[in-house]
């Protein structure tokens, strides 16, 4: 038994990592819906979910149970095989893309094995992501077609056209980053950003540094990526005022939930990519010599833990008064533990993941923020914007970056 385990350690570790990552991503997905509903609600002067659990914290759980227990009728005249295939494709591909994202620089040592914070680290990491995105269109396109209904068909036609148009800008906008990093590998792209001017971390990030700062590239990438993930203001595929619910109108119960989870997972992937490609991934924005910034996680965790306790003891329901201070205590104790000199190595280790997760959260917030702020594009505006603005700008970015990279290598 032990022989078998040690002989196949690599495979077993990878399997465990896959299960863990799936669990984490699905949980984050669930709470992302809560986060989105809360933030949009507060932007519109509402409370958002607050009935199920304190501050509506158990709402995702209730939603999940509802998705599982709802009746799941198959509409008449659908193309059965494709109808079942479409949500599987959408969810499977969306979850696969997370596998190549590196979440931290250093491996953990477990029983003599080095466990890195990624599942796969292919030398063509970015291309793998684009390949998965390219196939991801089929989930939406086939769902609409197979439903045997007018609105879903219109939705999926829109979405295929949109994805074809914006994929060009999406792919071209990262060429500048690739030219500067000289690699398709995500870890190497991050490491290429770790040589900042004057040692100030933030100046090494692709968006501010290098022969040509990738500001244009970043904006093209982020806009095109929002369009690829079918989010507001590019959610024409599911425009509820025109197409009922677009491509997933005929889907209910867990098949609908699969599209939902796929959409949120691709939001997370896009946020990871934005932080990795343009914002230095796990690199800290501060100079390397500022070791006191290592206490930032504690400095963030302890006050937020105390705030949750303070908020919890005044909460209106008895459950909230019990649960919220408990959660707050755990958070505050976690922050205290990280500040202990005995746990210095843990604190040093989590610096990378801390910064990466912080950046990812910022981008997720921007996603939600845009949903709360911007109205939907009209279809012709969408096409004109993609072809007449994003594409030329990203091509110009490629040409300019190539010029400055050449200028630097042979002045």
């Amino acid at each position, binding site marked *: 038994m032990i022989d078998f385990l040690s002989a196949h350690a690599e495979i077993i570790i990878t399997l465990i990592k896959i299960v863990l990552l799936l669990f984490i991503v699905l949980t984050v997905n669930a709470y992302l819906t809560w986060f989105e509903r809360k933030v949009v609600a507060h932007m519109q002067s509402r409370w958002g979910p607050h009935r199920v659990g304190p501050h509506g914290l158990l709402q995702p759980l209730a939603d999940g149970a509802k998705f599982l227990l709802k009746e799941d009728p198959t509409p008449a005249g659908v193309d059965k095989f494709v109808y079942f295939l479409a949500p599987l494709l959408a969810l499977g591909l969306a979850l696969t893309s997370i596998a190549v994202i590196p979440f931290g620089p250093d491996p953990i040592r477990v029983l003599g094995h080095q466990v890195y914070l990624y599942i796969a680290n292919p030398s*063509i990491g970015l*291309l*793998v992501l684009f*390949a998965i995105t*390219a196939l991801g269109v*089929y989930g939406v*396109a*086939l769902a609409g077609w197979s439903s045997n209904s007018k609105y879903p068909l219109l939705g999926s036609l829109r979405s295929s056209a949109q994805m074809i148009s914006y994929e060009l800008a999406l792919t071209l906008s990262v060429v500048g980053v690739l030219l500067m990093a000289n690699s398709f590998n995500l870890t190497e792209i991050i490491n290429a950003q770790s040589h900042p001017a004057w040692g100030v971390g933030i100046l090494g990030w692709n968006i501010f540094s290098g022969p040509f700062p990738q500001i244009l590239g970043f904006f093209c990438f982020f806009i095109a990526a929002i369009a690829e993930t079918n989010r507001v203001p590019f959610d024409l595929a599911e425009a509820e005022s025109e197409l009922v619910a677009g491509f997933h109108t005929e889907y209910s119960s867990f098949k609908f939930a699969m599209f939902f989870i796929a959409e949120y997972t691709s939001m997370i992937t896009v946020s990871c990519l934005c932080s990795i490609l343009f914002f230095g991934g796990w690199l800290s924005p501060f100079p390397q010599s500022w070791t006191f910034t290592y206490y930032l996680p504690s400095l963030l965790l302890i006050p937020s833990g105390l705030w949750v306790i303070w908020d919890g003891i005044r909460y209106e329901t008895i459950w909230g008064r019990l649960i919220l201070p408990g959660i707050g205590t755990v958070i505050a104790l976690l922050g205290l533990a990280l500040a202990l000199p005995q746990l210095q190595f843990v604190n040093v280790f989590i610096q990378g993941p801390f910064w990466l997760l912080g950046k990812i959260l910022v981008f997720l917030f921007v996603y939600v923020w845009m949903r709360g702020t911007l109205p939907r594009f009209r279809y012709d505006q969408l096409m004109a914007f993609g072809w007449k603005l994003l594409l030329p700008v990203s091509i110009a970015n490629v040409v300019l970056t190539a010029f400055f990279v050449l200028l630097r290598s042979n002045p």
Partner: protein
Amino acid sequence: MSAQLLVFFILAALSVIGALSLIFQKHPIHSALSLIVVMVALAGLYLLMGAEFVAAVQIIVYGGAIMVLFVFVIMLLNAGLEEHTSISKMAGFPGILLALALTGFVAATVARSAGLFVQVAGDNGKIPGTLSSTRELSNMIFRNFAYPFELTSILILIAILGAIVLAHREN
């Protein structure tokens, strides 16, 4: 090595089944889906030979862009089941003969140059040097074969211009 061989046979079987299903499916969308299976299986085969970049491009360009366009057009035209005319039924017989002839020709060529394949592929089944890394591939395209590459680009540009001219004629 045996695991590699197993993966090869799975992918090869997938691509053959996909290709057969492409021909025998009645509905154009199902045929298009079968073609996507073939493309992805071929990408897997390239990956197995160590040609990572070509594999990714195969999926992005063929599996993604081109096949999405196929599916898009089929959906847009709302194409129904395939219709058989008397001529298309008649075309079946010479088609089978031609397919057999082509298979024999390819098999004969492969059999004659089998030694060459082993020589090129080396011991680990990977093609050494030529296609394995993105850097070498781009060096070949943009240095050794720059002229053919640019000529192909011009050819594609002409096709795009032609499409625009055709689309604009009605206005």
